[in-house]
């Protein structure tokens, strides 16, 4: 039985792979490094896990004890069927996370390929509602482009994921990645990883880091816009995943004001930054601050368009947003846009 009465496109669902499950998709010698040499990806977070069951909802642990997001059947029961998703976009659990490896790009590249094949075979081919993200090891640009060429034409791959980490992706060196995306009608999805919000190290407390994640998203948006990515690739779209959205009006105003003063430094910009934002950038809603109906409506008005926000749950993570409880009441037209239509308009490969 579904609990909602409206269409939902969920733009952030974290499926999770276990190392043992990915091995059969992994080429040698990289399989050997895991099975015989016990390689696991380095993890850095120095804090206690944030909530009751680590980074997952405690009730998302599978009945046989695997981490949340590991099992399609359980995800179908707890999320897709229960809520009644029309579509969901898989964004992975980042463990292992090829795109955030700070070294050994060969392993990262091999992992990305294995992950994509696992995702297609175990998830996308098994549930019509689920659409996927192409994983790449973008640190090795040319290998990343090969991977986009290899799986990017899959009909259910809708975006390429880039980590929000210590590389600013607007740098012209990475533009060939965007060219490959445009060719395959893939959007760019950016999601932060565990390394720090500011560059160098973690803040003292988790609550500081988690509060300031939106600043890392703001840095990437600013970088992508002022490096001219969106005029150079007019069909490219960028969706900022899991950074919340209340920062959007501030950044639009700030970039426009700076552009009026300092345009001479970035003459390749043909539109004012807020127009680029409105036309080519989307932002997922989770984690939503608790706003009143009036505050929320005012914020959307300040954005100058109601076509930026795309609903997301972040299932199965601890800071999951419920489709019926996370956002305040809003008028039906706005609700349709935020919960489904904006995402459908954004992803060319998502059925309309």
């Amino acid at each position, binding site marked *: 039985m579904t609990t909602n009465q409206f269409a939902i496109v969920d733009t952030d669902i974290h499926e999770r792979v276990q190392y043992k499950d990915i091995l059969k998709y992994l080429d040698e010698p990289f399989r050997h490094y895991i099975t015989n040499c016990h390689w696991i990806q380095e993890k850095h977070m120095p804090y206690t896990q*944030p*909530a*009751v*069951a680590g980074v997952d*909802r*405690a*009730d998302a642990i599978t009945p046989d004890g695997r981490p949340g997001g590991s099992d399609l059947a359980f995800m179908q029961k707890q999320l897709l069927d229960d809520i009644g998703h029309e579509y969901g976009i898989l964004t992975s659990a980042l463990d292992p996370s090829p795109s955030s490896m700070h070294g050994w790009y060969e392993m990262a590249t091999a992992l990305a390929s294995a992950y994509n094949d696992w995702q297609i075979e175990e998830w996308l081919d098994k549930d019509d509602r689920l659409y996927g993200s192409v994983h790449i090891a973008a640190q090795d640009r040319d290998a990343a482009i090969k991977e986009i060429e290899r799986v990017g034409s899959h009909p259910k791959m809708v975006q390429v994921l880039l980590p929000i980490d210590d590389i600013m992706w607007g740098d012209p060196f990475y533009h060939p990645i965007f060219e490959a995306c445009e060719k395959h009608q893939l959007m760019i999805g950016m999601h932060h990883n565990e390394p720090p919000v500011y560059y160098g190290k973690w803040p003292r407390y988790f609550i500081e880091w988690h509060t300031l994640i939106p600043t890392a998203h703001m840095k990437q948006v600013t970088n992508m816009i002022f490096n001219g990515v969106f005029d150079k690739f007019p069909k490219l779209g960028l969706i900022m995943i899991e950074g919340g959205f209340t920062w959007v009006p501030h950044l639009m105003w700030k970039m426009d004001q700076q552009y009026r003063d300092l345009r001479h430094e970035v003459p390749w910009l043909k539109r004012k930054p807020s127009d680029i934002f409105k036309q080519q950038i989307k932002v997922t809603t989770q984690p939503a601050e*608790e706003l009143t109906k009036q505050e929320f409506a005012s914020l959307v008005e300040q954005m100058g368009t109601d076509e930026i926000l795309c609903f997301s749950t972040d299932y199965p993570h*601890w*800071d*999951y*947003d*419920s489709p*019926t*409880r*996370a956002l305040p009441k809003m008028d039906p037209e706005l609700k349709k846009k935020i919960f489904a239509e904006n995402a459908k308009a954004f992803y060319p490969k998502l059925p309309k």
Partner: protein
Amino acid sequence: MKEQIVCKTSDLEPGQMKASLFGKQSVVICRTLDGEFYAFLNQCTHQGAPLDKGMICGATTEESQPGEYHYCRKGEIIRCPWHGREFDIKNEGRMLANPNKKLPNYNVKIENDHVIIYK
């Protein structure tokens, strides 16, 4: 006044909780370390998560100076399974970070090893 048996006293060890039904309403029955029973609506006030899937634990208190931790109140705090919000079992289910918010609670009595709740 509606009353209902929701479980036996032996169903819960001190420091445990479990879900039950009060009419059609899901409730969470909690037993603190001193053996007392408490009952609340089994929904977080924030986004409605089922509280019985969370944990009963202690808490760090607000008396701390920066950099100091004092872990106390063991077995007296419900932590939500989703966002980790903390509710004080012995203080009407009030939320630690915002005591103005509290879980709807039920009266509890024990008769013949039965835990009975009533409004």
